[in-house]
């Protein structure tokens, strides 16, 4: 919801005196906190975990990954150990999880244990990806050759479903889009949704529909509301995931489905 910002800016433009600049602002520093980003891909039966820690706001902008964590999944009575793939990334493949099953994770790091659990969701598949020329003259990035991309899928009737739509432009992941939704009001219907990213003509756009569990949805819902800026921003807060012991991040599961369109 940057609409209000836009209106405020427009007012400023009308008065031709507004200005935006970079300022030096002193910020408090805080103790580093652990972030665990654990994704279980039920379509590919794999799990990938990134363990990192926070750094001070003005320090270099890169993820500080943490090695040396011991990570295990518990599924039914089976314990699966994750292997360190590259610095700070841990993974396991050839899982055997089915919708409705509960999977637990435990992360041991520096004598602390962080745990969380997730329930494997049902799968939904993209049926169509479409584009329209975006002709609303809002914002400077909107030139005449901008497209909005819509994705269509069939919702599973009789259960609550959670979705996330994300995209890749020319095979590069579009970061910063945390749009999630439920099927509230659309149960069992065909759902069509755009992603709030404008795409340039000529791009190869891959849409990915994630049918997620509730934990994943909750986390990204919070993340999306912390990321709205300016006039309409909610009071800032740290999104709370499902990990115990005050770790940031989440353990979520999803099914994935992709379709590609050439604009």
């Amino acid at each position, binding site marked *: 919801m940057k609409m*209000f*910002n836009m*209106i*405020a800016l*427009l*007012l*400023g433009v*009308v*008065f031709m*005196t*507004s*200005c*935006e*600049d*970079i*300022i030096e*602002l002193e*910020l408090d520093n*805080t103790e580093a*906190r652990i*972030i665990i*980003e654990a994704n279980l891909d039920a379509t590919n039966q794999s799990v990938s975990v990134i363990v*990192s*820690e*926070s750094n*001070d*706001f003005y320090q*270099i*902008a*890169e993820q500080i990954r943490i090695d040396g964590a011991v990570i295990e999944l518990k599924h039914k009575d089976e314990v699966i150990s994750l292997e360190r793939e590259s610095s700070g990334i841990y993974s396991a493949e050839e899982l055997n999880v089915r919708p409705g099953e509960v999977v637990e994770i435990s992360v041991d790091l520096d004598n602390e244990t962080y745990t969380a659990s997730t329930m494997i969701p049902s799968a939904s598949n993209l049926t169509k990806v479409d584009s*329209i*020329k*975006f*002709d*609303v*003259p*809002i914002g400077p990035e909107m030139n005449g050759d901008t497209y*909005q991309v*819509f994705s269509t899928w069939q919702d599973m009737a009789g259960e609550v479903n959670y979705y996330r739509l994300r995209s890749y432009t020319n095979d590069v992941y579009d*970061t*910063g889009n*945390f749009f999630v939704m439920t099927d509230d*009001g659309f149960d069992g219907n065909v759902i069509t949704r*755009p992603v709030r990213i404008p795409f340039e003509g000529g791009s190869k756009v891959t849409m990915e529909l994630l049918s997620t569990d509730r934990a994943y949805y909750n986390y990204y*819902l*919070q*993340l999306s*509301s*912390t*990321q709205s*800026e*300016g*006039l309409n*921003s*909610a*009071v*800032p*807060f740290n*999104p709370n995931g499902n990990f115990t012991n005050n770790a*940031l991040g989440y353990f979520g599961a999803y099914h994935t489905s992709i379709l590609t369109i050439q604009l």
Partner: protein
Amino acid sequence: MKKVLLLIMVFASTSVLKGQDFTLSGYMKDKDSGEDLMYATVSEESGLGVTTNLYGFYSLTLPKGNYKISYSYVGFETKVIEVNLDRDQELTVELGIGANELDQVTITAEKADDNITNTEVGVVSLDVKETLKIPVLMGEQNILKTFQLMPGVASNSEGGSGFFVRGGATDQNLILLDEAPVYNASHLLGFFSVFNSDALKDVKLYKGGIPAEFGGRASSVMDVRMKDGNLKEWKASGGIGVISSRLTLEGPFDKDKGSIIVSGRRTYADVVAKAFTDDYDDADLYFYDLNAKANYKFGSKDRIYLSGYIGRDMFGFEDFGFDWGNTTFTGRWNHTFNNRLFSNTSIVYSDYDYGFGLDAGAVAVELSSGIYDYLLKQDYNYYLNPNNTMKFGWQSNFHEFKPSEFKFDGEIVDNDAYSRLALENGLYWSNEQKIGGRLTANYGLRISSFSNIGPGTEKVFDAEDDVVSETAYDEGEFYNTFYGFEPRISTTYILDGQSSLKASYNRNNQYLHLLSNSNAGTPTDIWLPSSPLVKPTIADQVALGYFRNFKSNTYKFSTEVYYKRLQNTVDYEDGAETFGNNNIESELVFGEGRAYGAEFLLEKTKGKLTGWIGYTLSKSELRSNEINQGNWYSARQDRTHDLSIVGLYEINPKLSLSATWVYYTGDAVTFPAGKYYVDGSLVNLYTERNGDRMPTYHRLDAGLTWTIKDTDKFSHNLNFSVYNAYNRKNAYSINFEEGANGSTQASRLALFGTIPSLTWNFNF
């Protein structure tokens, strides 16, 4: 109600029994326009006296005898009339503007030392005419901005009309336009107020010591009264400015009996913008408002007033639009039952609604919502004797809250949405009593109630915000009622002719809560009624004041300290989903609040240089179990320091200069203390809620008014003003973002640089 009347009659009969008392009653009016003079003073030589009520009515009961009665009102020549009081008499007095008025500037519409003697503590009165000289943004007069220059009243954003009173939130202010509640007093995101100064007669803000006749908000009451219309002759006034123009017509349709006033205003920022650039050819960006009022006297005992307001904001691009506005209507009937009992009956309608639409090719989205009030009100003023003036009455306000209605391609998406209905009642009695020569007390009680009415469904939510249970209620069923007992008392003790001590305590219950997740008063803010899940907010406030005048009332000094306690404050939980959410109760957290501070005001009211210095030192904090680990944290509106300096200098009768300088501590905000990455994106890490501060705000505005011609027949002037004269880049918002080469940085948005403007005003 019957008991109160009985009580009154007992009081009345005892005074009748004493025998030789007679009553002098009537109205006080402006000789030139016929407008009623409210809060004017009627007194006899020994000092016994009363003030006129909101409709200019007074009643003075004295023992039989000869009296010299003086009628006075600031800015007007005092009239002394000899009265032989040997029977009840009616006397309506018209005051004219004194000869010395033209070269004298008065700041407040009070008797010169009223600030010392009246029982009002925590009250700000401003003369609407005076505010016209204060420099403003784009030359558009804004009474709400002028109030923000007084101690205890703080601005909620750059250029904004929203205000905080004594550490209270914006929604804790009751704003009444001719008794009609106004739910959104802002135009263009708050840069302009909905009150067109041309149509206003009197504005009073109660920061504390709120009289018993008002209720329903925790922090303050702003009582805005529209002009009645000139009863003597037809007049026109108006102005043409850079971005807006206004016109007011007023006059009698039946001389001295009935008059009418119509006042309109429209901005044309979009027209101006289109002249400069082609980018906005498809854009609409304007607001308009229209005030109208008519009144008529039927004989000497009855008078009817009808007044209304319509205002609307429009934002639009080709396929995208926003509009919102207020509509109010007030019908009033004044009746004097006898020379001591005055009554006013009001019927009020008020609505505030907004709509939003987007039509982007294949998808059309519409969202609309609104609040509608139907109010019936009965007020009595009873002038028992010069030492006791009573006010009592009741009001009943039926609220209808239309929920967010979300349409997608013309189809309503959420069919669960239903209008919520509620009835808010108030019953009050108060008495202003003079005890001896030095002590005056105004004490009273307001009993309020608030009922939720069916049809409706109340839901109970669990920690995951899921619905645990639902209870449905039938149409017309009163299924939940809150009661409030709200004592009000304020006292004044006169130390000597130049100074007084004042104290007040009051309790206010607030049954409606504005939920806002933004800084500016955006139109999508939601008004939510109290309900089984949402308890009413209760505010208790004590205040102490010391008032002192110097050099025969040329300088007025006052200081007040206050402490306020709030119970059942309402706020959004972290990450609340607000847009189009009809289960909004699941997204709330409840808590408590406290606010305290000291206010200082030094005014100079006479001479070539007039103006004031206002300073507030204050603190406002909130606490909730779910926020900040249950610790107290600063409310956004916590302003440690708030300083305003206002100066008006009259160079000669034709030229006057004005300047204001404001300085205040930045809002309490939550800035990141660190950062981390999730899903390939930078995410800010926060520690303490509202533990940081926006940069300190300060700004100088200056204005010059050149009176080109000033006669009774025609007068006009040019007003030149400069907003933010030294181009201070005050931060409107600060965003934290990823910089060009992998760095992170803070980006400041400063909305207004130096803005000059020119307005031509006329009057004939």
